[in-house]
Each structure stands twice: as C-alpha cells, then as structure tokens.
C-alpha cells in the first residue's frame, strides 16, 4: 500500500508536481491554500465581514435615533403642550424630520446608477479574465457611475443642509449624515481603487494574470452597492 510518506520520497514525481503547481499558480497570480480559496480573497471577505459590523452598527444607530426622534423633538418644545393629541405630536415630529425633504425619484435614479456600476464591474472582471482589452472601458464606466452617485449625494446633502438639517442639529441628523456619509466615503474609496485599475489597464499592466486584483476590488464595490440597497430601503422608502 502506498502512503503519502512514501510519495514524499519520490523526488522526481514531487519535483514535477511542484513545478507544475508553481507554473499554474504563477500564471493565475495566486497560490495553493488549504481552504481552496486564495488568501487575498479570504482576507477581503474577512474585511467585508468587519465592514458588515460597522454598517450594522450605523444602521442600528440610525433606527434607534429614528425611534427616539419624536421624544427628542417634543421634549421641552414650547409648541408642544401636554394636552396635545398624540397624532398631532407625531405630525409635528414628522414635520421636523428629514423625510419630507426626501426626493425619492432622485434617490431612485442614484440607486439605479449604483446598481448599473455593479454590472459594469463584473463585466470588467470578465473582460480581464478573458484578456479581451475591454476591461479599461468597463472599469472607467464603473468609476464614472460611482462618481455620478457621489455627485448626487453631495447635491442631496447640500439640499438638506439648506433645508435646516445639520449634522449637530439633532440625533436624527447626526445618525443620517453619519450613515450615508460613511457609505459615501466608502464609494469614494472604491472610485480611487477603480482609477488605479484604470491606470494599470491603460498601461497594459492589467492582464488576465491580475484578474484576482480586479475581482477583489469588485468584491469591495459590490459590498458598497449592497449597503446602499439596505440604506435605500430602510432610510428612504420606509418612513
């Protein structure tokens, strides 16, 4: 019976196997792992796991601030008397919130743009794997769509600020700007990564052997897209 220890004593076979594996791994820019997933990809997933906790905390804080918004607005406000019906108090609190300011069609268009950028991102990865020279187009398109999304967010923040919703005005404003601002910062970080890839692509340094790099940036980009899917529904669509 042949065991693994015996195989280790076959220098020719092992040498051939090791060379073959090294060649294969070098060609794909990765190496063997016991999990069957490259270390870089595993590290990215762990990072995204920690990001889930970060955004989970921010969304939870937003929801808590929203739940306490009525109490916060009503407390000590001379316009609200103790004899006022609960419906009127609720109506007054809602009039003080950001929700009447929401421009749902505008935000929907932003969401659509971010979803479209996820499509161009996977197409960029596919083009890199196939080495067909189209990755620079798709990567540029992704960066452009991300920039349009950020421009929309800047416009929205400006509009809210002019309406009177400031970062330090109340708990709701702080939670809203922190949540959406953190997301915007992540998108901006993603755009910078994409621009680096575009630069590499135009210099001919982003071939199929670097496909995993594109995939890793893609994972990050899709993650910020997913976070926006949650924010869009929880913050904008559910009053």
């Amino acid at each position, binding site marked *: 019976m042949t065991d693994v220890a015996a195989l280790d004593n076959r220098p020719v076979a092992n040498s051939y196997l090791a060379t073959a594996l090294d060649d294969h*791994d070098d060609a794909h820019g990765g190496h063997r792992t016991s999990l069957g997933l490259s270390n870089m*990809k595993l590290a990215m997933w762990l990072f995204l796991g920690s990001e889930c906790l970060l955004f989970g905390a921010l969304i939870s804080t937003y929801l808590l601030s929203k739940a306490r918004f009525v109490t916060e607005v009503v407390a000590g406000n001379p316009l609200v008397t103790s004899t006022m019906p609960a419906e009127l108090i609720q109506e007054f609190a809602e009039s003080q919130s950001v929700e009447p300011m929401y421009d749902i069609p505008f935000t929907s268009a932003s969401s659509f743009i971010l979803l479209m950028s996820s499509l161009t991102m996977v197409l960029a990865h596919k083009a890199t794997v196939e080495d067909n020279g189209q990755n620079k187009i798709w990567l540029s398109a992704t960066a452009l769509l991300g920039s349009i999304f950020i421009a929309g967010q800047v416009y929205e923040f400006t509009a809210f600020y002019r309406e009177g919703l400031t970062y330090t005005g109340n708990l709701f404003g702080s939670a809203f700007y922190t949540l959406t601002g953190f997301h915007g910062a992540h998108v901006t970080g993603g755009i910078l990564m994409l621009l680096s890839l575009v630069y590499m692509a135009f210099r001919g340094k982003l071939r199929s052997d670097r496909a995993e790099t594109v995939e890793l940036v893609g994972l990050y980009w899709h993650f910020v897209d997913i976070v926006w899917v949650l924010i869009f529904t929880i913050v904008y669509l559910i009053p």
Partner: protein
Amino acid sequence: MAADTQLHADTSTDTHVGHGHDDHGVHPTERQYWLVFVALFVLTGLEVAWSYLGLEGVALWLPLLVMMTVKFLLVAGAFMHLYFDLKILNGRLFAWAFGGSLVVAMSVYVVVFFAFDMFA
C-alpha cells in the same frame, strides 16, 4: 495507488480553486449577469412603486424588506460570486463559520434594539 490518486485530487482541487478565477466555468455567464441586473432594476422599480401606494405599517415595510433581501442575495450571490465560492469551499467549516457569524452578529443587533427599548 489510492493515496496517489487522492494526493493528485487534493492538490488539483486546491490549485484550481485557489486562485479564485472564473476560468473554470463556475461563475455566471455575461447573459446571466445582465439578467441579474434586469432583476435588480425591476425590483428597485417595484420598491419605489410600492412606497408610493400610500400603505402603512406591515403592509408597507414587509414587502419592501422582502424585496430588499432578494436584491441583497442577488448581488451577493451572483455579482460577488458568493454562491459559487461557497460551493467551491467543500469544507463545511467555513460555510458554518460564515453563516454562524452572521447569525451571531444579527442577534447582537436585535439585543441592542431590545436594550434600547426600540420596540417598546
């Protein structure tokens, strides 16, 4: 001989999935990517339309949360290749660790909500 075959099978598996590329036909095709995008587009449209129906309470937020979850799973499963990577990861340990961590994290947030009397 059996061990010999096993050795080759193991190293082959490690190597072929180790680099995480989709050159082995385990990731979606371009057509499937477009179909996922269309599904996301339609779901977003439905979400917005639903929010304009003037519904309140569970009738409003439950369908919205369901559609949001479907969108979440579509992006994570297809675009992030999570569905395919989890299939590649034969070891159940990683899948359980991933799923288990998710459950623990969600539980923590639920506990926080209760601790702050959000449902009171």
